[in-house]
């Protein structure tokens, strides 16, 4: 039992020594190592930044999704005045936040502008379009289920010819966001490989620079585990440093974006706030950096340390 205890404390001691020693080695060559860490940091910051933008986009879209619009096409014989009256009545409904009125003439003008059927409509002579009410459900109503109920209720109104959700474009936006999400995943994988290669190569150079030291320590009875430990911890520090720099870069970038974004969201009368990195995000960023650092140095150490034997 004492033997096991002694071995464990030796093991822990040597880990602690390598942990501190490797950090000291990095600090002794600040410029070169800072460059390496900065490259790793930028490589980590790019996918993280995209991820944060995506999260923000999703937040905006989620807001839109709950305030989905309902378009009411009124019966053709309903004139503008009674349509406006209906709009006023509907706005009293607590389930409805806003009921916008689009007159026949406005609808025609818009249709002419957007459809390109200008000539055909002119031949028709008479405006064939009905009045339209654009309904935005009340803020208190959030679930899709309740939206469906509201839609059904509005269909029952005698003035209404047909009613439908106007969410096609939201679906398209979601599809687009899915594509961007996949792009971010691909980009992240590529940059993760880049980080692995950078760290692997840095450790490879460190191993060759320390060739003499490795030979001497091997002669004095160092195990492979002892020799590779400082290199593994160097990888750890590179990854952790890279993660910190990535965090810094993203925090600064978001700070720079915050002001124009709040101006824009004010113009949209929205209380949208830019999401910044959460504690969980920071934790996973650091975990990614450290894991990549350890993995890169582990691969490098296992490939190159064997090649060095005392002479």
């Amino acid at each position, binding site marked *: 039992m004492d033997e096991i205890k002694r071995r464990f404390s030796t093991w822990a001691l*040597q880990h602690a020594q390598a942990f501190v020693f490797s950090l000291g080695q990095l600090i002794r060559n600040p410029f070169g190592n800072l460059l390496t860490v900065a490259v790793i940091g930028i490589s980590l910051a790019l996918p993280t930044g995209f991820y944060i933008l995506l999260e923000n986009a999703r937040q905006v879209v989620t807001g839109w999704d709950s305030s989905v619009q309902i378009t009411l096409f009124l019966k053709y014989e309903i004139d503008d005045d009674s349509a406006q009256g209906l709009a006023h009545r509907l706005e009293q409904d607590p389930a409805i936040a806003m009921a916008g009125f689009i007159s026949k003439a406005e609808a025609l003008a818009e249709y002419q502008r957007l459809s390109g059927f200008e000539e055909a409509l002119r031949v028709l002579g008479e405006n064939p379009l009905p009045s339209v009410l654009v309904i935005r459900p009340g803020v208190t109503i959030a679930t899709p289920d309740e939206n469906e109920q509201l839609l059904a209720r509005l269909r029952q109104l005698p003035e209404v010819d047909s009613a439908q959700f106007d969410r096609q474009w939201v679906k398209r936006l979601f599809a687009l966001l899915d594509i961007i999400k996949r792009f971010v995943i691909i980009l992240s994988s590529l940059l993760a490989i880049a980080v692995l290669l950078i760290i692997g190569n840095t450790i490879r150079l460190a191993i060759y620079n320390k060739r003499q030291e490795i030979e*001497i320590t091997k002669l*004095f*009875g160092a195990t492979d585990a002892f020799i590779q430990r400082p290199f593994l911890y160097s990888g750890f520090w590179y990854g952790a440093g890279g993660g910190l720099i990535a965090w810094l870069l993203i925090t600064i970038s978001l700070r720079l974006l915050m002001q124009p974004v709040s101006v824009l969201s004010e113009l949209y009368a929205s209380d949208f706030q830019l999401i910044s990195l959460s504690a969980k995000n920071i934790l996973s960023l650091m975990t990614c950096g450290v894991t990549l650092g350890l993995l890169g140095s582990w691969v490098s150490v296992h490939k190159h340390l064997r090649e060095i034997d005392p002479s």
Partner: protein
Amino acid sequence: MIRFTNVHMTYAGGNEALKNINLHIAQGAMAFVSGRSGAGKSTLLRLIALIDRHTRGQIIINGQNLERVRDQRIPLFRRNIGFMFQDHRLLVDRTVFDNVALPLVIAGYRYQDVRKRVQAALDKVGLLHKANSNPVALSGGEQQRVGVARAVVHRPALLLADEPTGNLDPALSWDTMKLFEQFNQVGVTVLIASHDLDLIKRMHKRIITLRQGRLLTNAADIGQS
């Protein structure tokens, strides 16, 4: 301590470095290996330290048959040996203290023990006041003495030195040899490869001479001298 029985060593290229070596060096002895360059002095030391493995015969070091020492056990085996080199091979990116501490750190000693032992070893070679210097700032003789301190700080049973005085002037060489003798007197078995015949003759110790891979003088085994 060291027993060679019909040992042959042929390098991968076909170079026969050692031929049919029979040799016994008792525990606590001090002996020199001499011969010209290429006679096989370094090879002999390399086989003892398991840097290379012999191709035929049997080598027993400190009761261990080297054929039975598997690769994974080599580090533990080497912790019983101290090494000295002609080109001192100190690590220039750390202090004298840290250089001497290396074998202890490898073996996992606690810092308090490391400090005590390093100070004792540096005191022994007369360089305690240089503990915090960089090896580059020392003279050649001082660097060599730091090498000696590093070789004995972990109290190995066996001290191997390959041309330890190759770069030193006669006076410093003599001092270094005397230092080895002192360690030998406290029980360390010492084996020194050297081509400086005049110097080693004056030490009045056993001299093993190699010529073209063969043992030339195979005098009777020498025990405690």
